[in-house]
């Protein structure tokens, strides 16, 4: 087997001197961090700080120029297909197929991840109950309100029980109540041992994370629990923390 570390390892993401260059531009500049199993890890930064590039590397979609990374114990340079099999991914932009029904979307994604039909059926029933979605089961996803879609998209992204789920601005544009219900789903997933790696522009959501990193110009400028970051920077809330750190940016591009 290609396993490098046992699956019960406490570290689900290990990044060591991870770097990505595009020509002469260093998008991600030598970042190192670790995320533990079941942790909710907030990955913050200004637009253009390098968050998306870093996330794409961790998802096995982009090969690092230097440094190394292990996600779910697989090497993000040499085992990209195994990385993809063991993670979930959801973004604000791509979530589900609008012209498929709710259950068809679940079946499609479950199938792609190699789940058995029987398991998909049984878990679909459970999920519809938990989300209180039984009436929506046969509806086209395109006809659902955004908040429903995002809750469903998150549930689909962890349907195959990945070790870690990557969420790229999952709550953008979502109404305030649904946004909070969404975070309650995140908590539940983390309690079940799924590691959550999440980006957001809502600073109140940064407070819900166990630990938060803040990227500035391709580097990780700070990494700690929200409580400690506030203490260190003498800030009232995470918005102030963010404002203080992100203003250091000298990247003219954004």
């Amino acid at each position: 087997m290609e396993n490098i570390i046992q699956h019960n390892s406490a570290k689900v993401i290990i990044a060591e001197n991870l770097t990505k260059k595009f020509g002469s531009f260093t998008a991600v500049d030598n970042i190192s961090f670790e995320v533990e199993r079941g942790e909710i890890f907030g990955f913050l930064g200004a637009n253009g700080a390098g968050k998306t590039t870093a996330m794409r590397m961790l998802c096995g979609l982009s090969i690092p120029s230097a440094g190394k990374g292990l996600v779910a114990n697989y090497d993000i340079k040499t085992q990209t297909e195994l990385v993809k099999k063991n993670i979930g991914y959801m973004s604000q932009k791509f979530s589900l197929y609008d012209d498929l029904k709710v259950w068809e979307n679940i079946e499609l994604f479950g199938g792609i991840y190699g789940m058995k039909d029987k398991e998909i059926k049984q878990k679909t029933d459970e999920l519809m109950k938990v989300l209180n979605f039984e009436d929506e089961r046969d509806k086209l996803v395109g006809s659902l309100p955004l908040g429903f879609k995002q809750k469903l998209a998150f549930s689909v992204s962890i349907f195959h029980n990945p070790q870690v789920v990557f969420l790229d601005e999952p709550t953008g544009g979502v109404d305030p109540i649904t946004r909070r219900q969404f975070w309650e789903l995140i908590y539940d997933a983390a309690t079940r041992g799924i590691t959550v790696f999440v980006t957001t522009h809502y600073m109140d959501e940064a407070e819900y994370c166990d630990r938060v990193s803040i990227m500035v110009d391709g580097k990780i400028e700070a990494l700690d629990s929200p409580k400690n970051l506030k203490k260190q920077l003498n800030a009232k809330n995470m918005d102030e923390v963010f404002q203080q750190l992100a203003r250091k940016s000298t990247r003219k591009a954004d």
Partner: protein
Amino acid sequence: MNNNQNTNPDISIHCESISKNYKKIEALKNISFEVERGEIFGIIGPDGAGKTTLFRILTTLILANNGTAKIDGFDVVKDYKEIRKRVGYMPGRFSLYQDLTVEENLNFFATVFNTTIEENYELVKDIYQQIEPFKKRRAGKLSGGMKQKLALSCALIHKPSVLFLDEPTTGVDPVSRKEFWGMLKKLKAQGITILVSTPYMDEASLCDRIALIQNGEFLTIDTPKSIVSQYENKLWAIQSDKMHKLLIDLRANEITKNCFAFGDKHHVSVENGKLIVDDLHEYLIKNGHKNIKIFEIEPTVEDCFMQLSQK
């Protein structure tokens, strides 16, 4: 000037009973409001609430099924040509020509409106200067923040009297959002009326007046201050060492009307006089909480939105 009767020159946007359906879906239901000259008026609500549909009707791009609307006294149906000359519109999606340079884009928009960059340079100077070093770069190659500045410059270059900004800050980080609102304040100082939509509730306080919108309906229209003062019940902020469990325990308590996470605190809405701090403290200690803090707070616009949207 137009000769319409009952036209008040102090009113930039007049919108009366506007409704719009897409087949069976009612995108807008009976929307009425007015925006005064020089106001920053915010339309605040989640995606799918009807914000973009409203903007498209007011900028004469689509027709309403019912109702009337006037911009600077001109009717959006009859006088659409006049309106198009005098409004600036920044749509939610990046709308510039990706394969033209920064400078070419701005020049194009100026030319379409029979003006030149030089003629109105003063108006866009503050914003355009920030991207001028990249004026030979193609718009498609710009970063998000720079695209936003270019789009705003293009919407301003013909010196509009009313500016329509449809979600200009969506997906933009908190630092850039603050900068953008700083730019709007400066434009307001120059007498431009601004109608701006946003899903970020914290931007509400930067507007003179706001309308909260959900499912095609306005929940309320007022100044942010007045909306906050109309919050029903008392609002309390509560913290403990176990925040996730705290949410569950607070919801289980009979005095709680509703309870939501709010950054590092939970906000709990309770009928006036129903919350006795010592009693609640004791209840939470019994449920295994430590480091408990309970204090009354003033609601935010987001609290008000949640209360109104549940009615």
